[in-house]
């Protein structure tokens, strides 16, 4: 039966969480789905139980991120099984209970979804084999707990309590992560199998104090140990089923579970003993004392939970095998009786409308059945014989008496234990006496009576379990406990005797003292309450927390405001500075060789080109405020760069660049028509200096990188293409064959980007109108829109340009040319018509919709790539061959021509769409906003 994968247990909860969400609006359906999911988990765990109790440890492993030591691995051993049974078993009862508890107006689907999410996360914690996986699930439990505490979203104090719990447990989770990483590094792996085997090495490591401190940080916050205990009483803002399940039976046990899990690795040192025992002891006594004074039923139970968690912590802290076994035993016992007590408290609240013990009195007459159940469970909490709490408490008492603790501990521990026992008896007595006896109810909102039959069933089952374990422990809990103990103290499981009667021992005497003391203490409670109210006021934890929260918020806003002040100019400066620092820093620290290659002198052409670029670039900067000049200088730079491509033997590139430069300058001039013709002087000298410095550093960095790159030997990819191109594609122009054949997929992406940009421009200009800006000296623009000579000359140019562009397209495979260049040439020719004769004239004669053309071009390119699929080829695979038709001579054909035509059409359409739309902008009527002249100028293309 061990074949059921363990991963299903956490997955059931995590994925099952979706079920109630999609299961329709009916709360009955949601509850049943949730119950089915938990039941399935219980059955699954039950099927695994025999093997595990036989001593097997089931481990499953899926590789996830091996480089980080992170595998999705799970293990089921005795400890995991005990917890799994608690989670799934109590979980099932909670679902049943919640179905009656939650009012029908509550968002029930959310409750069950979050509940199952938590169940899955908790399962993950107890089954994790990899410690990093454990941390992930650990955080998931914190998050689902946060969501459940804040379940009543309209209650501000519930939301605050939820944030408080998340802040505390989340910080603890962070600490745990740090501890686990250190632990994994020291142990040489994150799997428990590895970690558990390297206990001696870990304890001897100099990092051990850090590991211990960080792990305990996670444990103490999760299990609400002093001084982090304050979140748990606040968490009682959650609905009672949540308090019963998360905040007493399961989630808060994750901390002590981890103590048990890592017991073989971390325990046994002086540091462990001192820190864990002390914290546990302080929590145990202080919380038990405080519990007595809570008037809120759930508040009393919450402090009692904190105290019992302290007891368990203290047991693990004492570090002997027997105390560890007692700790595990008490985890189970406490889960059972505390869950039933919370449910009873929930019933009382549900039926009477109050949780205040000053109002609740004499309920035994009104709800006798519930009263009996609650009294038995409270007896278990107090440690009354014949109930499960008695057994583990006796074990605890006798452990504190063990010799070997040394010195004063020998006295402190038993005294503290007895004292906590006294308080426990007193508050348990208060829970019984104050609620069910003690006169008559005072001002209850409702007349209390017994709850619906089925609401009591979960409580009855748990109380029956308290009795069964208490009376016949050997037949009920002992096998599970032995299996769990084997996981906590492997190979060292002490002989433990779960009997009711051990004779007249010192532990029994301590129990007696606790009983008598507790009853006496409760007898003088009025005096104590007065003392408490006078000297121990309730700390305003939520108020402090809110203040801290607000303070952090203010700091964060100030920091953010200092960086993010809304100035794009400043962001840009920061961005450039960061980029330069990263690139330059990486270069400097990598020990980069600043040795450029090639010592030869530059030839005259290169020198000249560099000089022109330098001058034109500098002129652009100097004249940037006179925009038309700056724009023309940018044109000069572009032309010089294309000449540089000629110099370095890149004819395709030079042709493309030339055409693009023409189009770009037209574009910039068109746009300038709508922008101010000059920039106002507004930068301070300081700003200009800072920008110049940044620019200088950026220039030196980029130039230095280029220079350094020349020093590294070239790879052979380019030469490889040159060697293969003719044989494989039949094309001699390697640049073109790379574009349309070898790297055609890249090209397809790039023309898509081009098309998107063009469509973006089109979309942004649609329905958009802008008045032209003032001319530089404030005069009106030249009204002569379409000079006659330009119009006359340009018209015969169109067919010629078309011919040239088709020629460039067709010869591209073998000589400079191809779809890009040809498309740009055609685009320029078309734009010329717009400029010369106006877009109205062109549109009247050339009825092409460029968007359709764009789609056609892109579609053609894409479809030409898909055709090879028909005969099982790859996307964009090409074929080529020779064709010898009569009269026409030899023709070399290649299927990539179709793709290149797609590129060609896309480029024409994009370029013309952008420019024609921008040109039309100047012709739109803007009503009164038109500043100059009564007749509209025909086109915006003045400067061109």
């Amino acid at each position, binding site marked *: 039966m061990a074949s059921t994968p363990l991963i299903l247990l956490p997955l059931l909860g995590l994925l099952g969480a979706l079920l109630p969400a999609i299961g329709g609006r009916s709360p009955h359906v949601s509850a049943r789905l949730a119950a089915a999911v938990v039941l399935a988990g219980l059955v699954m765990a039950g099927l695994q139980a025999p093997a595990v109790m036989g001593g097997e440890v089931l481990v499953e492993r899926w590789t996830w991120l091996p480089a980080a030591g992170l595998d999705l691995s799970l293990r089921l051993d005795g400890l995991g099984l005990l917890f799994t049974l608690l989670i799934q078993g109590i979980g099932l009862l909670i679902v049943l209970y919640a179905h009656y508890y939650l009012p029908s107006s509550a968002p029930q689907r959310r409750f069950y979804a979050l509940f199952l999410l938590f169940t899955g996360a908790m399962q993950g914690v107890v089954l994790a084999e990899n410690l990093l996986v454990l941390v992930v699930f650990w955080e998931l439990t914190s998050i689902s707990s946060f969501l459940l505490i804040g379940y009543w979203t309209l209650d501000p104090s519930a939301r605050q309590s939820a944030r408080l719990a998340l802040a505390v447990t989340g910080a603890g989770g962070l600490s745990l992560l740090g501890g686990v990483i250190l632990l994994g590094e020291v142990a040489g792996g994150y799997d428990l199998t590895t970690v558990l085997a390297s206990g001696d090495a870990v304890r001897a490591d100099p990092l051990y104090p850090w590991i211990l401190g960080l792990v305990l940080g996670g444990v103490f916050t999760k299990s609400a140990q002093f001084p982090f205990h304050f979140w748990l009483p606040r968490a009682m803002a959650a609905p009672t089923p949540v308090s019963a399940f998360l905040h007493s039976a399961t989630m808060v046990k994750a901390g002590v579970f981890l103590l048990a899990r890592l017991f073989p690795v971390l325990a046994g040192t002086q540091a462990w003993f001192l820190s864990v025992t002390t914290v546990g002891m302080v929590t145990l006594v202080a919380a038990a004392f405080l519990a007595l004074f809570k008037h809120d039923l759930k508040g009393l139970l919450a402090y009692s939970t904190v105290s019992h968690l302290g007891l368990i912590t203290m047991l693990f802290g004492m570090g002997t095998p027997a105390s560890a076994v007692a700790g595990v035993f008490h985890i189970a016992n406490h889960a059972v009786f505390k869950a039933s007590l919370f449910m009873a408290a929930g019933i009382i609240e549900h039926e009477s409308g109050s949780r205040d013990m000053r109002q609740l009195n004499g309920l035994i007459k009104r709800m006798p059945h519930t009263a009996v159940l609650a009294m038995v469970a409270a007896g278990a909490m107090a440690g009354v014989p014949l109930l499960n709490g008695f057994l583990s408490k006796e074990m605890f008492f006798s452990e504190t008496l063990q010799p070997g603790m040394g010195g004063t501990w020998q006295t402190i521990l038993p005294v503290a234990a007895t004292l906590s026992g006294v308080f426990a008896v007193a508050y348990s007595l208060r829970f019984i006496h104050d609620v069910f006896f003690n006169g008559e109810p005072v001002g209850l909102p409702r007349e209390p009576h017994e709850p619906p039959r089925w609401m009591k069933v979960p409580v009855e089952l748990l109380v029956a379990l308290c009795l069964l374990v208490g009376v016949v422990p050997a037949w009920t809990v002992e096998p599970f406990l032995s299996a769990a103990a084997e996981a906590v103290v492997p190979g060292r499981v002490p002989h433990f005797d779960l009997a009711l009667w051990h004779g007249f021992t010192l532990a029994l005497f301590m129990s007696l003292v606790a009983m008598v003391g507790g009853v006496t203490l409760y007898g003088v409670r009025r005096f104590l309450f007065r003392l408490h109210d006078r000297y121990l006021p309730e700390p305003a934890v939520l108020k402090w927390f809110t203040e801290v929260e607000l303070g952090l918020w203010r700091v964060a806003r100030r920091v953010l405001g200092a960086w993010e002040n809304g100035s794009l100019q400043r962001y840009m400066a920061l961005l450039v500075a960061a980029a330069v620092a990263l690139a330059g820093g990486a270069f400097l620290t990598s020990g980069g060789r600043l040795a450029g290659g090639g010592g030869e002198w530059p030839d005259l052409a290169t020198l000249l080109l560099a000089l022109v*670029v330098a001058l034109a670039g500098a002129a652009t900067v100097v004249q940037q405020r006179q925009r038309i000049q700056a724009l023309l200088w940018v044109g000069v730079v572009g032309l010089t760069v294309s000449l540089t*491509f000629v110099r*370095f033997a890149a004819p395709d*590139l030079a042709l493309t660049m030339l055409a693009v430069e023409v189009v770009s300058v037209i574009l910039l001039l068109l*746009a300038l028509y709508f922008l101010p013709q000059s*920039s106002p002087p507004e930068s301070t000298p300081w700003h200009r200096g800072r920008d110049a410095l940044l620019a200088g550093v950026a220039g030196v960095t980029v130039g230095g990188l280029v220079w350094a790159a*020349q020093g590294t030997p070239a790879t052979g990819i380019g030469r490889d293409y040159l060697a293969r191109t003719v044989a494989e594609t039949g094309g001699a122009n390697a640049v073109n064959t790379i574009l349309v054949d070898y790297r055609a997929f890249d090209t397809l992406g790039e023309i898509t980007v081009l098309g998107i940009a063009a469509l973006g421009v089109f979309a942004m200009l649609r329905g958009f109108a802008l008045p032209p800006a003032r001319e530089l000296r404030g005069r009106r623009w030249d009204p002569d829109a379409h000079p006659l000579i330009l119009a006359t000359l340009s018209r015969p140019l169109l067919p010629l340009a078309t011919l040239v562009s088709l020629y460039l397209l067709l010869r591209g495979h073998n000589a400079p040319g191809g779809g890009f260049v040809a498309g740009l040439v055609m685009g320029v020719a078309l734009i010329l018509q717009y400029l010369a004769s106006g877009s109205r004239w062109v549109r009247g004669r050339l009825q092409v919709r460029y968007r359709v053309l764009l789609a056609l071009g892109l579609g053609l390119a894409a479809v030409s790539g898909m055709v090879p699929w028909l005969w099982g080829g790859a996307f964009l695979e090409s074929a080529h061959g020779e064709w010898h038709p009569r009269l026409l001579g030899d023709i070399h054909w290649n299927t990539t021509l179709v793709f290149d035509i797609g590129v060609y059409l896309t480029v024409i359409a994009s370029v013309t769409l952008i420019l024609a739309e921008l040109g039309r902008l100047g012709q739109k009527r803007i009503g009164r906003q038109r500043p100059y002249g009564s007749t509209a100028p025909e086109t915006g293309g003045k400067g061109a």
Partner: protein
Amino acid sequence: MTLTVAFMVGWLTACGVYLLLRARTLPVILGLVLLSHAANLVLFLGGGVPAEVRPPLVGSGEGPMADPLPQALVLTAVVISFAMTAFVLILALRNRRSLKSDHVDGERRES
């Protein structure tokens, strides 16, 4: 030789960055244009700066040929940088319309 081209690229970058940090949209766009020239040159020069080469046209003559791969990469980059310039220009126009100013932060009124 390499120092000369490196200087060219570095100079273009410096001019581009300075313009990029200006306050008005058009100089910023001009800065972008200069920067894209610089970027294209960086990419192109990745193929080396030999003094004497011939174009990568197989069978067109004797002697070493230039590296075709950077050329192909830059060719599409040139076209795309045009598209980007166009897009940013239109953004600048819309910006001026909606903010009544061509300042990049839209704060100060047009002079």
